[in-house]
Every structure is written in C-alpha cells, then in structure tokens.
C-alpha cells in the first residue's frame, strides 16, 4: 500500500510536467489545428538556451558569429517589413540585438561570478531563458508557420515535422551531441515522512510545471490578449474580420508554447543530463493530448497526470516481472484503450450543434 502511494505520488509529479507538454500542443492545436511535431526539439532548444545563461556556457566565435548575424538579419527584416519601422531605425536595432546575442553567446553572461547564490541565479536565469525560448519560438513561427495562415492545417503539421529535423540539426551543429551535466542546485525540499520519500527534484518539477500551467490559464481566461487568442482559436477569419490580427496572435501562441516547453525541458533535464537525444521525451505529449482530448486544456492536465501515473505504475509493478522497457509503452496501450471508448479523448470539446 505504501509502495502504491509512493509510486502514484512520483507518477503525478512527473505527470504534471507531461501535462505542461500537453498544454503546449493543445494551445497550438486550438489556434491553428496543427499538431506541433517539433515539440521535442523545442524542448531541447529551450533547455539549451537556459543552460547557456545559467551555466555560462560559451560558444567559439565561428559558431557565435553566424548566430549573431542571423539574429541581426532576422530582426532587421521583421522590424522593416512586418512592423514597417523606418530603415534607419530597423537596421541599427537589428545590429544592436545581433551584437548583444553574439556577446552573450561568445563571452557568456557570467552569472555564476556575478550572483553566487544558486537560487538567486536560478531566479534570474529562468525567466531570461524562458524569454529567449519564447523569442526563438516566435522567430520559428514567423519564418515557417506564418506564410501558411489560412492554408490547410495538414500542411502546417507537416512543416513542423520537417522543422523538427532542421532544429535538431541546428542544435547538434551548435552544441554538439554529447551530454551536458545539468544540476540546478535548487533548495532541497525532499519530503520524507515515515515510509514515504519524495525527492526534491521531482517536487520542484511538479510545482514549477503546475505554476506555469496556472499562469497560462490565467493569461488565457483573464486577459484581453487571452480573449483574443481564444477568439482566434475558434475561427481565424472571424477574428480577422473583427480587427484581431490573427497572424500576430498565432505568433504569440507559438511564443507561449515554446516558453512552456522550455519550462518542461529544463525540469526534465534536471532529472538527468541535457543532450540532443533527449528530444524524444517531447513525444510523451502525444498520449497526453490524445487521452485528454486534442482541444481541451483541462484534458491536458488530466491526461498528463494519467500518463505519469501509468508510467510509474508500469515501471514499479510490470517491469520487475521481466517486461523491461514496458514503462515507455504503457501510456500508448492506455491510449489505445481510451481511444476505443472515447475517440475524441476524455475531454474533447462538446460541440455546439444547431440546425
């Protein structure tokens, strides 16, 4: 019995991280009906961006310089063509941004020497890393997704497939494919009560994921930007007709999604080490959203927790029976069962039907 509670508890904590991954898929799906298959790559990318800031990882100049130049080109282009700033403003601001990025990548932010306390360092680097992830997310959206607005969602989905391979290649080129040690050194909040033991890292992961999840929901349901996102999610054409810039909203959605994926990525990296091969964890989002319902935010939470528990149970009770690796398959088997019973997932939207 104690064993069961212990297993379920750990499962729920990991499940909350999965729920966050599910949320990222769901908000993009709601906004553009496309499935983001590049989620694993966004996950590694977000973790690496945080890693660069937190651990002061620098790049040699022949990697930092092209990236800086790329940022310069991109920012000038966006400022000039999308925001229609004047050329004299667009070019220098792009230059400054590119140079700043280059400096951070080449010289590092030097947080470890500036801020000795690891917690404080985390509190500074975490939002910065997330911001960076959000910006990269919106860059990717601007380049690959935006031109497809109004086209079939299938083409968008396929683009994300290719995007995944491309991003993975880029990450490998920039940071190589070896493992980076990842240790956040957050305050120890291990819970040890009688026979129960919950480790500090999973608890942090659960708390931060839940917090992020909550913040996204507050953003979606309590702010006017959230209202615009929900309106656009329902119908892009109608939203545009009423003065909501659907293109920009889609960009915001991708930024939020990339940001949340980064949170999940950082938490997952913290369980072990960070390396390119870790991307497959992102695909855990597939059973999560399919079980919960592709277009249900609450479903993502429930689905995440269910997948987490299922995995933990399979790991604790089935694997010892000789089924090594069953832990990774169990969520998919559960998924099949759920889909047999409810093809739209547990919480798929109740469509409003009228005649």
């Amino acid at each position: 019995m104690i064993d069961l509670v212990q297993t379920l508890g750990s499962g729920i904590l990991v499940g909350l991280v999965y729920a966050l991954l599910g949320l990222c898929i769901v908000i993009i799906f709601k906004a553009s009906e496309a499935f983001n298959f590049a989620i694993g790559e966004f996950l590694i990318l977000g973790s690496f961006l945080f890693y660069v800031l937190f651990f002061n990882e620098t790049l040699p100049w022949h990697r930092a310089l092209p990236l800086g130049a790329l940022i310069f080109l991109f920012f000038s282009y966006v400022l000039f063509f999308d925001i229609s700033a004047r050329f004299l403003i667009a070019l220098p601001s792009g230059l400054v941004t590119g140079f700043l990025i280059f400096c951070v990548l080449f010289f590092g932010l030097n947080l470890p020497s500036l801020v000795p306390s690891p917690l404080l360092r985390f509190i500074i680097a975490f939002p910065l890393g997330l911001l960076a992830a959000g910006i990269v997310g919106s860059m990717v959206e601007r380049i690959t997704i935006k031109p497809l607005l109004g086209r079939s969602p299938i083409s968008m989905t396929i683009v994300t497939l290719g995007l995944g391979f491309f991003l993975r290649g880029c990450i490998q080129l920039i940071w190589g494919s070896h493992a980076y040690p990842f240790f956040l050194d957050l305050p120890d909040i291990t819970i040890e009560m009688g026979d129960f033991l919950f480790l500090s890292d999973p608890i942090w992961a659960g708390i931060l994921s839940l917090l992020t999840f909550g913040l996204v929901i507050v953003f979606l349901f309590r702010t006017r930007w959230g209202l615009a996102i929900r309106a656009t999610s329902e119908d892009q054409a109608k939203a545009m007709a009423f003065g909501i810039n659907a293109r920009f909203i889609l960009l915001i959605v991708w930024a939020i999604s990339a940001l949340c994926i980064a949170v999940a990525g950082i938490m997952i990296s913290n369980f072990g080490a960070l390396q390119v091969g870790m991307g497959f964890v992102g695909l855990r989002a597939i059973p999560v959203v399919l079980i919960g319902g592709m277009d249900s935010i609450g479903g993502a939470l429930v689905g995440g927790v269910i997948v987490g528990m299922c995995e933990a149970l399979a790991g604790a009770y089935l694997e010892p029976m000789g089924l090594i690796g069953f832990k990774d398959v169990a969520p998919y088997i559960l998924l099949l069962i759920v889909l047999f019973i409810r093809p739209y997932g547990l919480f798929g939207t109740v469509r409003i039907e009228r005649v």
Partner: protein
Amino acid sequence: MLSIENLRVVYHDVISVLNGISLEVKDGEVLIIIGANGAGKTTLLRSVSGMIEFYDGDIIEGDIKMDGTSIKGLDATDIMKRYGVTYVMEDRPVFWYLTIEENLGAASFSRWDKRVKADMEEVFGYFPVLRPMKGKRAGYASGGEQQMLAIGMALMTKPKILLLDEPSLGLAPLITEELFSIISQLNQTDITIVLVEQNAHAALGIGKRGYVVEMGRIVLDGTAQELLENEDVREFYLGSGKKERKSYKDAKRYKRRKRWL
C-alpha cells in the same frame, strides 16, 4: 467616400470571380447590393475589407479607394483601424464558444480603452435582448440573436463604414424587419452602410440606392425606387413580374450558373 474601380479578383490564381466591378459608396448612405448566389457579392466585400488574401484570392486589376487613397492590399486589421471599414461576414460570424460579453470584448480588441464598457452598454441599448443573456455562450443563442450580436460586435470596432453580408439569411421575416430597422437607425448615427442582400424587397426598403451584381459584374444600378420597379429585378429577385423569361439567353445563363455552383 469609398470607391471601387474596375475590380478584378481571382481565387487560387485561376477562378475568376469579379470581372471588373466599379461602384461608389457615398458617405452616410445605405447602399444596397443585390445578386444571386455565387454572383460575387461576398468576394466583393472580402476584397474591400482586406480579407481576400486569407481566402487565397488576389486582386489582379483595379483599385479600392477610401477618400482618394488606395487601400488595396492592406492588412484587414489596418483597413479596420485606419479607415474604419468593418466587415460583418455572412452566416452570423460570432464566436460560438465565447459568451456574448466575451464576444463583444473580443471585437473591441483592436481599440481597447476605457470606453469599452460604456460601448457595450450602448450595444445592449440597441439590442436589449442580448443583455439578459450576456453570460451565455453565443452558440446557444438563436439565429436572430446571433446576427444582432454580430452587428453589435461590429459596432464595438467603431466603424465608419459597415459592410453587412446577407444579415437576413435564414431569419424569420419579423426578425429581419427588426434588424433592418436597427440598421437604418445605425445609419442615422453617421455610419455608412453597405448592405448585401438576397432579400431584395426588405433591403431596398431601407436603402436609397442599389446595384445589381451578376457573374462578377454590375448589371444594373439606380435608386431603390427604380430598382423596385425594374422588370428584371422584379422577376429575378422579387419573385414577381412577368412569368416567362425575357430572352432565351438569360434563361440559359441562369441554368448554367446553377450547374456550376
């Protein structure tokens, strides 16, 4: 003044829908555009509002001007914000899964300010039926209520020109009458109205001037009175007038039209 000059629009680079339409909307008037299904009325409004690109349509010739400046090719949001042109799409463009209040809020996104709450009250003043149900999802409202909400949402954008696409579609005659009386009331408050309708009789009742569109061309224009008395209009849009077709050519064109739809 909104003027459309020799507009030609194609969808997907090959389907030619508007074949050189020219018309003029004078400030403060109610302009009626009538035409059969597939004549290109919706396409015309999409072009004016900047939405055409979203449907993979292109303006390949001609120009759209607001008070002399071209608004062709601008973003839908830009056209709405800068020139006050708001397009109420056909088929009651409300967000089904948002409440009525949220719908009005979403429509005021482009101009969010302190006056939004007051403007919402004003909309509820025009459409009192909406007030008691403002917490209800718009998808559960009746057709008439949805159309009223759609027009209310358009009002939240503070339009100078309102493009209404078949607002009476699928509504009971009594509701249509109410709707049209509110539309002419809105016109009193200095909002120019372009009303696209198949319900020619009711529409010509509140408009002074009208155009008849057929196969992407203007085939007739005149005052509401002239149109109401015109024999072709009576035959094709009012369901009265001479029973036998005027010429074989016309009849054939209508048959062919239907097959392509």
